[in-house]
């Protein structure tokens, strides 16, 4: 079964609002990464949070990690139309370094 599961599957908000996406996973991890993918384009790495970190910021992005609940959230503040994309979480597990991916959240920012 999938390691990372994201919710919601789709999210539509007005420009300027904040968008929150969640990711849950099943096994212990070394780190969790968030990626963005615009329609038909490549994956873009957004941010990585390590298993010993609880919160991390990068520009308008805020990521939290709760290892006790095996979950992470990605918050995008002051959303823009250009943020419209699919957002994936991916986990790197203890024993290997391949990324295990969630199914993604499709985010639509309405102007």
């Amino acid at each position, binding site marked *: 079964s999938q390691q990372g599961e994201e919710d919601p599957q789709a999210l539509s908000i007005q420009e300027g609002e904040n968008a929150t996406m969640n990711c849950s996973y099943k096994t212990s991890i070394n780190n969790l990464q968030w990626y963005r993918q615009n329609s038909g*384009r490549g*994956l873009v*790495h957004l941010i990585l949070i390590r298993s010993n970190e609880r919160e991390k910021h990068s520009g308008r992005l805020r990521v939290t990690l709760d290892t006790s609940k095996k979950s992470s959230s990605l918050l995008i503040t002051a959303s823009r139309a250009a943020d419209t994309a699919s957002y994936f979480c991916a986990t790197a597990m203890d024993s290997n*370094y*391949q*990324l295990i*991916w969630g*199914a*993604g959240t499709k985010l639509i920012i309405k102007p």
Partner: protein
Amino acid sequence: AAGVIQSPRHLIKEKRETATLKCYPIPRHDTVYWYQQGPGQDPQFLISFYEKMQSDKGSIPDRFSAQQFSDYHSELNMSSLELGDSALYFCASTLGLAVDSYNEQFFGPGTRLTVL
């Protein structure tokens, strides 16, 4: 800064043909990963190489093979192409497997393969 380079960016093949995708990792990166992303699907791990040796293998069909060369670039060879092989193929690179377990994977732009 230099990024992961993939070529070609787009490839159109017919059924039963062969295709070769190339990946050039970030300079000094010695580990390469290949992923396949079908339409509307999440990326699936195919195979990875560390220091020119296969380090891990995912759901890669027997018709596919890959290798990493002395300059650390990697090639994914696909034979007897099927319609279902149409997908985005991503390559990612990292520096090393051991020691630092928090390595980030840096992704290339992907090769879009269309099988007709």
